[in-house]
C-alpha cells in the first residue's frame, strides 16, 4: 500500500522460474508463482476428489453394498463433493489461471495487492489443512451440510466449518484483488472494450466471490455456533428453521456455480477465435452476458429448494428467474458457434477441449430447464438426473474449460511445448469416458434412481456397470493427460513466445514470462481478436 515504487528499474530479463529454493516460492509476491502454487494445489485435490469418485463407482457396480459400509459410502461422496467444489473447482481457474494471466492480459506487472495475494494463498492453505484435520471424524453429510443432520452429526463439523470459512476468506481476498487490478492497472489504451473476454469472465466471477462468499462464511459460523453455543437458528426445537440454512447456503452456492463456469467460458472465448482464425463474434454480447449471469445468478438460488416446503409463490418466481438466467448463457453459445462459422479451424488440444466444452455444456444446459420447471423437478429432484446435469455443466463445462486453458497456456507458463499426439489421445479417452459415465446417469435418473445411496434397485445395474466402466476410461484419460503435463514440464521442446499466433498481450511476453512480465508496459491500440486480418 505504500506509495514508493521501485518497479521500473528491475526488469532483469530473467524468467519467473529462474529463482530456486522453497523460500522463493513460499514468500513470493509474483502473481505467476502464486498462480502456479494454486494450480499445483488444486490439481492435487482434483485427483484426490477423483479417487473418491472412483471408489463410489466401484461400490455402485453391485446393487447391494459390497465393498464399503453405508457410512463409508456417505463419507466418500461427501469428500468427493467437498474437495471437488471447495478445493478444486472454485479456486482452480480463478486463483490458478486467473492469478497467472489477469496481469499478463491487461498489460500489468502484477496484481494490485501482491502481499494480499500471497496472504490469500496461505489462508487457503490453512483452510485445506484444517479440512484435512477434520478427517479424523470425516463428514458424512453430503457437501451441502444440511441441518439438522449436520448440527447433530458426530463428525468434525465444527472443524470443517472453520476450514471452509478460511477457504471462503481466501476466495474473497482474491476476488477483491482482481476487481481492483482490473479497474486500476490496465495498460494505457486497454479500454474496457479491448479487454480479453477472459478478463470479463474473471471480473464477473470476482464480483460474485466478494458478494456471495461472506454469506456462506456466516452460515458456517452459525452452524459452528449451533454446535458449540447451542444457538437455534436452524433448530426447529428452538423455534429455528432448517430451511433458513438452505436459503443461506444456496444464496452462496448457487451464484458460486457461476464462479466455476464464468472463468471457463472466458477461456473458451479466448481459445475459439485463435484456432478458428476469426474475430470473436459478438464481443459485447459475450462480455455483458458474463456480467448479466453474475447478477442474475443471485436471484435463482431457490431452485435448489423446490421440494423443501417453500411457498408456491416463491417456487414460481424462482422457477421463472431460472429460465431468465439461461438466456445470457445461450447468448454465449450462439456467439461461439457464430465465431466458428466459416473459420479456418484447426484441432489442437486446447481447441478440442474448447469444442468439448461447448458440446457438453449444451447438454448440461438443456437439461437444466427440466430441473428448473416445477412439475418435472418434483419427479427428477434428488435423482441421478441431477448428478448427470451437474457433472455435464461442471465437469463437462468448467473442467473441460480448465483443461483447454491448461493446454492453451502450458507453453506460456512453463516455456515448454506439450506432446500434441498424447494430448489428443488423452482428450479422446476423456471425451468418451465422460459421456459413457454421465449420460447413463440421465437415463437411470429419469427412471427414478435416487442419488446418495450405496444401494439401488437391481433393475438399474446394467447402466451402473456401464457408468463405472466409463469412469475407468475417464480416469485413464486424466492420468495420461497428467503424465503428458509432467513429461512436457521435464522434457518438452522449448516453446516460442507465441506458438498459437494469438493476439492477446500475454503472448507478447516471453515463454516463460520474465518476473516483471513485460520489458515495457505495452500500449494497446486494438482489441485482441483481429484474426483473419493482414496482421494475423
Amino acid at each position, binding site marked *: 500500500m505504500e506509495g514508493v515504487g521501485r518497479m521500473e528499474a528491475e526488469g532483469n530479463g530473467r524468467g519467473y522460474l529462474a529463482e530456486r529454493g522453497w523460500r522463493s516460492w513460499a514468500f513470493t509476491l509474483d502473481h505467476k508463482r502464486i498462480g502456479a502454487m494454486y494450480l499445483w494445489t488444486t490439481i492435487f485435490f482434483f485427483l484426490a476428489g477423483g479417487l473418491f469418485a472412483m471408489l463410489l463407482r466401484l461400490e455402485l457396480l453391485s446393487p447391494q453394498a459390497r465393498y464399503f459400509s453405508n457410512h463409508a459410502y456417505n463419507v466418500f461422496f461427501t469428500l468427493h463433493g467437498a474437495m471437488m467444489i471447495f478445493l478444486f473447482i472454485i479456486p482452480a481457474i480463478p486463483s490458478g489461471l486467473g492469478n497467472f494471466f489477469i496481469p499478463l492480459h491487461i498489460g500489468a506487472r502484477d496484481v494490485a495487492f501482491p502481499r494480499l495475494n500471497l496472504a490469500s494463498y496461505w489462508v487457503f492453505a490453512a483452510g485445506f489443512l484444517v479440512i484435512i484435520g477434520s478427517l479424523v471424524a470425516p463428514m458424512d453429510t453430503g457437501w451441502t451440510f444440511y441441518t439438522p443432520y449436520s448440527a447433530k452429526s458426530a463428525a468434525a463439523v465444527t472443524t470443517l466449518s472453520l476450514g471452509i470459512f478460511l477457504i471462503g476468506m481466501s476466495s474473497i481476498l482474491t476476488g477483491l484483488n482482481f476487481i481492483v487490478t482490473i479497474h486500476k492497472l490496465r495498460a494505457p489504451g486497454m479500454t474496457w472494450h479491448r479487454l480479453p473476454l477472459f478478463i470479463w469472465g474473471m471480473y464477473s466471477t470476482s464480483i460474485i466471490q466478494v458478494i456471495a462468499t461472506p454469506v456462506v462464511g456466516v452460515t458456517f459460523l452459525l452452524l459452528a455456533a449451533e454446535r458449540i453455543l447451542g444457538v437455534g437458528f436452524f433448530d426447529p426445537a*428452538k423455534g429455528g428453521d432448517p430451511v433458513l440454512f438452505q436459503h443461506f447456503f444456496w444464496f452462496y452456492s448457487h451464484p458460486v456455480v457461476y464462479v466455476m463456469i464464468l472463468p471457463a467460458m472466458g477461456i473458451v472465448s479466448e481459445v475459439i477465435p485463435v484456432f478458428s482464425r476469426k474475430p470473436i463474434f459478438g464481443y459485447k454480447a459475450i462480455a455483458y452476458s458474463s456480467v448479466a449471469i453474475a447478477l442474475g445468478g443471485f436471484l435463482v438460488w431457490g431452485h435448489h429448494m423446490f421440494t423443501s416446503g417453500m411457498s408456491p409463490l416463491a417456487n414460481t418466481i424462482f422457477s421463472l428467474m431460472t429460465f431468465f438466467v439461461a438466456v445470457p448463457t445461450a447468448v454465449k453459445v450462439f456467439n461461439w458457434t457464430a465465431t466458428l462459422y466459416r473459420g479456418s479451424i484447426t484441432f489442437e488440444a486446447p481447441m478440442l477441449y474448447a469444442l468439448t466444452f461447448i458440446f457438453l455444456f449444451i447438454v448440461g444446459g438443456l437439461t437444466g430447464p427440466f430441473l428448473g420447471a416445477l412439475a418435472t423437478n418434483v419427479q427428477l429432484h434428488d435423482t441421478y438426473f441431477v448428478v448427470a446435469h451437474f457433472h455435464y455443466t461442471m465437469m463437462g463445462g468448467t473442467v473441460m474449460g480448465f483443461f483447454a486453458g491448461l493446454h492453451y497456456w502450458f507453453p506460456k507458463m512453463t516455456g515448454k511445448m506439450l506432446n500434441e499426439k498424447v494430448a489428443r489421445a488423452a482428450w479422446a479417452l476423456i471425451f468418451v469416458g465422460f459421456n459413457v459415465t454421465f449420460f447413463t446417469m440421465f437415463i437411470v435418473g429419469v427412471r427414478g434412481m435416487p442419488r446418495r445411496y450405496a444401494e439401488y434397485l437391481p433393475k438399474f445395474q446394467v447402466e451402473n456397470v456401464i457408468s463405472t466402466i466409463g469412469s475407468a476410461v475417464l480416469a485413464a484419460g486424466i492420468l495420461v493427460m497428467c503424465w503428458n503435463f509432467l513429461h512436457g514440464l521435464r522434457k518438452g521442446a522449448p516453446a516460442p513466445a507465441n506458438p498459437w499466433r494469438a493476439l492477446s498481450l500475454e503472448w507478447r511476453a516471453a515463454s516463460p514470462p520474465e518476473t516483471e512480465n513485460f520489458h515495457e508496459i505495452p500500449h494497446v491500440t486494438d482489441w485482441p481478436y483481429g484474426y483473419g486480418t493482414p496482421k494475423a
Partner: protein
Amino acid sequence: MSGHSGEHADPAVAFESAKLGVWTFLATEVLLFGALFTAYTVFRMKYPELFRAEHAKLDRVLGAVNTVVLITSSLMVVFGVDAIKRGKARLFEACFGATILLAAVFLCIKYLEYTAKFHHGIYPRTNLFFSIYFMLTGLHGIHVLLGMGLLSYVIILSRRGRFSASYYTPAEMSGLYWHFVDLVWIYLFPLLYLIG
C-alpha cells in the same frame, strides 16, 4: 523474492487502488452482517411477542452510552485523518489513540452487559432473540477488536515517520473501516435495544 517490491510505481494509482480495495472489502462486510440481519428479520416476523418481551431485558442506558462512545470514536478518526492530511503526525496519533481508548471503553461496557446477562442465566442458547443478540454483537465485538489492532498498527507506522501530508493511505483506509464498524452498531442499537 523475485525482485517484486509489491508496490506501485505511481502513488496516485496505489492510493486509488487501496481505496477501491477497502470499499470492496466493506461490501463484503455488509453481506457478512447482512445474513445475520436477514435472520433477525425472519425471526422477528415469526415471533414478534418473543422479541417484544426479550428486548426489554437489555440495558438501554448502557446501549445508549456505547452508541455515544462509538460515534465519538468515529469523530476522533475524522479529526485524525484531517490532521495527517495537514501533516500533523503527533495530532494524528493522539486522535487515533483516543479512538482506541474509546473502543476499549465500548468493549468494557459490552463486557459488563454480557456478564450481567450470564449472571441472570441468559446465554446464546436461551432463546432466538438472545441467539441473535449474542451473534450480532459478538461478531461486531470481534470487528471492534480487529479495528483496535489495525489502528494501533497505523499509529506505529506513524511513529516511524511513514506518513506525511502527501502520503497517508493506511491512515485513511483504516479510518474507513472504523466508520463501518461504527455504522454497524448504529443499526444494532435500535434493532436490538429500542424497537419493541
